[in-house]
């Protein structure tokens, strides 16, 4: 061990691994220090000698910068010294890959509402799996508005100091595949020379110029999937501007201070000794449960609408092509709902979705003519075109920005950056339709992440409330309904037909199959049937309306399963085909976090099995009724005229179950799974 330590000490004085790189046309790469560059060529000092190359032989020179931030002896700085003198031990953190010794986020807001954020992380690696995530960071930015800069980054392993250099820093676009929405960039870096026991420190700054369409807003988490010793957030606001903040899920022991500083006010939040989160089944999205502080500058929802409404109106152009298409789509429709559905279906299907969030492109939609011509739009632009077409059709829709259920909405923070989706709302008779044109959803359905989501009306009648919440759809509008009829023969072979009707999010999942060509769909259906049993053979199937958003998807298939029932002497045993509930999400005896789903669900099933003539029922399970933690289950078996009837209904009515109610949920799921383990036993007559 001592020898190893001496070795690392010697590394600290070894030549740096950093060098300029000369890329030659023949593919070679020369590492060294470029000492001369003129018309004659390039000289580079390598470890062994000076080499000279003609310019004609050179492809590129890369000057490699080390990110030292002007520091000469970082180990002497108090924070790092404190960490190095008291390096956390892996045994003290049995769950964790690394520890955040300090996460320090500092916002400096300027008088012109431009702002800078400086993020520093000081970490120590506890285990091998912590090496990569501890030393890796990604920064997203919009180049026209934001400028990121790495101030410094280094690792200290034993006494060996290694700076980050350009070799493992990369900038580029994450959306090259979506040319029309390729705007945001990412900068990422990986600190070298990281081992178990390494201390890592990095700091970077992002300067953001003021743009009223891209105002200051930040949501800052204080607890993560690795533990944090000190988590600190500081915001400095100049006189004349007012910070609006909201603490969400913050524990009582958080420290908060507000003090006057030169020319403004400084706010600081601090949390100590936050343990890591651990993965739990069905845990809520991160920003629904982590302690967080939401930050914004003073504004009002009305003021926000006042600024954005004209911007959005300016983007609405009912071009002759849009008008003609709108008229064509509604010309044969008589009712309002039919017209709305026709327009919705066209936008959902014909405008291809571009998965680039508005935070990574723009909070102001593109011109509707441009969206229409490109036949492409993101989660803002597709609903915006639908709004324009509904308006062109004579409706009076609203257009709203939505915050999906992945994070918490805060009404006290009027800021456009709270939102990440958009939708169009329209009245049709007594119905209010919330329309997000997605090509797997019908007009009267809504993806789970948009149900119960909060929204802000930016266009439409001014007398409606600015803020609203999308509905959570009833279980009758979500789920599946199965009706299956089988015949079991005396040898235990089963054959029959399964039919299924689908609604809501379940239907949307099945509609994904529309992208399969016929041959691949056939093979998928064979596979689906085979999932019932290793001997299951698909005889035929129908799958209707996959691409037709005006109708529900219907599915039926005929299968045969050889040796489905097992024989044991005079007995024959089997289970209801497809009845197989699992309790694998209830392994834990208790939970820390609630259980979460995006939508409600319901599955209804009726199954008949014609029994073989020479057998009688020896045993069937009793009927069951289970209720607990927002779940309900009912099932019953019945035998009449040599036919077994089974019916069941499973409902999930709650989308969030508090951790305190987990024992109820666990009891419910275990009872449900145990019930589905029951055998039906026949006996020869």
């Amino acid at each position, binding site marked *: 061990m001592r020898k190893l330590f001496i070795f690392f000490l010697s590394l600290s004085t070894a030549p740096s691994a950093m060098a300029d790189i000369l890329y030659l046309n023949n593919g070679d790469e020369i590492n060294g220090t470029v000492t001369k560059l003129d018309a004659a060529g390039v000289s580079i000092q390598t470890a062994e000698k000076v080499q000279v190359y003609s310019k004609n032989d050179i492809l590129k020179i890369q000057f490699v910068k080390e990110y030292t931030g002007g520091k000469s002896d970082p180990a002497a700085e108090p924070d790092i010294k404190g960490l190095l003198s008291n390096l956390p031990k892996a045994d003290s953190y049995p769950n964790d890959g690394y520890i955040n010794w300090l996460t320090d986020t500092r916002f400096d807001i300027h008088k012109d509402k431009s702002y800078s954020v400086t993020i520093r992380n000081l970490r120590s690696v506890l285990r091998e799996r912590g*090496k990569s995530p501890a030393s890796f960071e990604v920064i997203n930015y919009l180049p026209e508005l934001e400028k990121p800069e790495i101030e410094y980054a280094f690792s200290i392993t034993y006494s060996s100091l290694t700076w980050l250099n350009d070799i493992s820093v990369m900038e580029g676009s994450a959306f090259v595949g979506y040319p029309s929405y390729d705007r945001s960039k990412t900068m990422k870096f990986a600190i070298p020379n990281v081992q178990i026991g390494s201390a890592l420190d990095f700091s970077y700054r992002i300067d953001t110029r003021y743009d009223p369409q891209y105002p200051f807003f930040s949501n800052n988490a204080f607890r993560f999937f690795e533990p944090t010793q000190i988590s600190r957030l500081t915001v400095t606001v100049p006189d004349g501007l007012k910070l609006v903040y909201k603490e969400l899920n913050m524990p009582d022991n958080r420290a908060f201070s507000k003090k006057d500083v030169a020319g403004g006010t400084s706010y600081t939040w601090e949390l100590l000794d936050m343990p890591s989160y651990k993965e739990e089944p069905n845990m809520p999205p991160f920003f629904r449960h982590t302690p967080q502080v939401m930050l914004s500058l003073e504004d009002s929802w009305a003021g926000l609408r006042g600024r954005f409404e004209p911007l959005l109106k300016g983007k609405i152009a009912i071009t002759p092509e849009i008008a003609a298409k709108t008229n064509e789509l509604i010309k044969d429709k008589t009712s309002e709902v039919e017209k709305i559905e026709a327009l919705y279906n066209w936008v959902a*299907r014909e405008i291809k979705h571009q998965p680039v969030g508005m935070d990574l492109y723009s909070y102001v939609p593109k011109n509707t003519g441009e969206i229409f011509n490109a*036949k492409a739009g993101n989660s803002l632009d597709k609903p915006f075109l639908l709004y324009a077409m509904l308006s062109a059709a004579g409706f009076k829709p609203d257009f709203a920005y939505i915050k999906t259920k992945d994070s918490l909405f805060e009404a006290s923070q009027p800021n456009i950056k709270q939102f990440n989706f958009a939708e169009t709302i329209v009245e049709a008779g007594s119905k209010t339709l919330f329309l997000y044109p997605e090509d797997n959803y019908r007009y009267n359905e809504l993806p789970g992440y948009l149900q119960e989501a909060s929204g802000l009306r930016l266009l439409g009648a001014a007398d409606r409330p600015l803020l609203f919440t999308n509905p959570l759809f009833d279980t009758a509008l979500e789920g599946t309904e199965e009706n299956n009829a089988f015949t079991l023969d005396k040898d235990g072979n089963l054959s029959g037909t399964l039919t299924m009707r689908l609604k809501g999010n379940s239907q949307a999942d099945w509609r994904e199959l529309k992208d399969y060509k016929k041959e691949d769909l056939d093979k998928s259906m064979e596979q689906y*049937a085979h999932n019932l049993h290793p001997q299951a053979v698909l005889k035929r199937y129908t799958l209707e309306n996959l691409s037709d958003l005006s109708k529900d998807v219907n599915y039926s298939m005929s299968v045969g399963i050889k040796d489905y029932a097992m024989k*044991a002497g005079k007995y024959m045993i089997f289970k209801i085909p497809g009845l197989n509930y*699992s309790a694998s999400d*209830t392994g834990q005896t208790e939970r820390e976090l609630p259980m979460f789903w995006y939508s409600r669900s319901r599955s209804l099933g009726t199954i008949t099995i014609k029994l073989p003539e020479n057998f009688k029922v020896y045993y069937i399970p009793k009927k069951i009724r289970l209720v607990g933690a927002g779940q309900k289950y009912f099932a019953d078996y019945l035998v009449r005229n040599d036919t077994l009837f089974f019916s069941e209904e499973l409902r999930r009515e709650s989308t969030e179950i508090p951790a305190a109610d987990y024992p109820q949920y666990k009891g419910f799921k275990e009872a449900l799974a145990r019930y589905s383990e029951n055998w039906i036993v026949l006996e020869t007559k």
Partner: protein
Amino acid sequence: MKFAAIIIILTILPPVCRAEVLTLRSGQETTGTVTAFDADSITLEDGKSLPRQMVSTIQFGQAKPEQQEAAAARPSDQDKKAAAEAFDMARNFGKKYSGMNGLVLLDSGDYTLKTDGAWTLKTREIRQILKENLKQSWGQIIRCSEEGRERAKIIKANVYTADGGIYTLDPTRIKTSKPQSASGDFFVSGSVCTQYAMENVQVGSIVDYEIEEETYNPFRKDFFFPVWGFQDSEGPVKVSEISVTLPKGREFYYSLRNFPGKRSTEPKITESATAKTYAWRLENISPLANEPMMPSYEDVAPYLRGSLFKDWDRIFDWTIGLYNERTKPSPELKEFTLDLIKDCKTDEEKARAIYHYVQKEIRYIAVKVGVASGWGGYDANLTWKRRYGCCVDKSLLLTTMLGVAGIKASPILINTNDQQDIDYTIPQLGFDHSITVAEIGGKHVFLDSTGYDYRYPEIAGFDYGVHVLNVFNKKIDFVPVPTPVENGSFYYYDIAMSPTGSALISENMSYSGSREGELRDYYRSIKGEEQKRAFQQMAKEVSPAAELIDYKVNNAENINKPFTLATKYSITDYAKRAGDILIFHLPDFEVAAGRIKEISQAERIYPIEYMASLGRYYVYSISLPENYEVVLLPEKLELSDKYGSFTSQCAKAEKGKVVCTAFWERGERVIAPADYKAYKGFLEAAASHTKKQLFFKDSSVKIN
């Protein structure tokens, strides 16, 4: 004519402009000739001086993209004629096929090699989009090129819509963008992508585009490897054709795989005074089907690969040159290596110590900025200092350290078995991974130091069963597939049943081969509390009434020792009651149908490709209370086919004890389509058997 007059033709720059392009750290670019340079500043010929700290790169001889017309041209008569012909072709061709996502009407390519080693590929595609999902992938053009060596130019991009609309290329909407590497471990820079999203692409539209890609500055003048695939997975292909034109006198070697039926693989050859052209054409090609666990595209589709030379010597010589340079140990690395192995007595012990060191201490990060780092990797000494590297870097470091230990070793270039089989009849550079081979104790041992979890001499499953390039030995080598027992999972269960039907189950699990490394990887990557949850979940999968009592994960972080697992759980009412009958299944034994999806189809077109061989070995020792009377145990089953075997039996042992054993083995990795039916029957019979139950009678229950 009037419209044409308003098209502004901008200056067309020559392909190569010799001015230097300086990229500043701010992201801005400036062009000029550098005349002076020192430690502090860079001076351009116009006298402008830049602080050196501000400059990130200087690119020499970068080709400027040729600038094009500033506005979309109005459809010409030729466009109208092309649109009409395309729709006619689509109508006629489409009649033969139903349910397709799209039709490929023309898929045409033309490689041209110039005398200076530069080359171009011109492609023309005419495709009809029949489903929404293709609007994205077929409705836009993205071509990425290496800066300073390659460029892409969109010559034509027309959209013909079913209602008669014709939308021509709008050059003002052509963009370029530098991509970010998707994975967190990848830093692959130096490319720029030309992007164009075609407008008004709808279902029923036909896209008709032409692209010219040019490699104007190849790093090797003789590395010209044209490739062409003739089949598509989205729909049938009416015509797929490729031609390769070379300067007269250049030899051309090629290989064609998977040509359908009796169609000739012989090219049509034409010659001019200066060039020779080889051309292949296929018509009416059915779409590629999608089957679970099928081979990769090149292994099943008609495919051309070509080269200017016949054997692998030049590839060997080139890679040997690169790797020799990078595997010379510095005195420090030598000293470190010798210290690391100082207590090792045999070559095997030395290799083990070094193999484990490179796996554990060198983090996987792939930094690829050019040809040398991309193919040649970094100097082993640099990788060792940085403590990170990609597969090539780690392989070079392992080779170097083994060399210091006196063990002969070589880097290996490999295409992992989830990629196409390399066609060694023609030289190419289509490899995706690098490992190492060493001569240890008289054995030829393959080692893969990229992962973190493989105990010597285990390697990852994706390395098994492929031919590889053994660089230093200049030969094509083969990584063997381990026998089932060498890549196995071994399960030992003790099950104690109570008189009331509850069970206490103790389970010990051990592994060999890649299986051990894969599981070690999983358990090392999750938190201690999450390990516990994984065991709780596993117990619940045996029975909803299961409650975990204890578990152990042994040596997840220590690859010097075998990775093993142990668990203990109780289950109330484990045996299901049906009157006085108790029905009991062996825990974790059932092979659910979803786990053998590869045999779900009645017939298969393509082989099944597993990653590795399979060995599963189960022993269940079941203790029964006095009130249990054995009614029926699953009958003994012995199955075997060309590829594997399955043996299962349960028997009463001493009083109150039943012992069940099962062994499932598959020695091969690839199942041929001709053997599919037999293999499907074998697997279905084995899986069905695993559903069998054990039947007992509870003598303490009285049925009225």
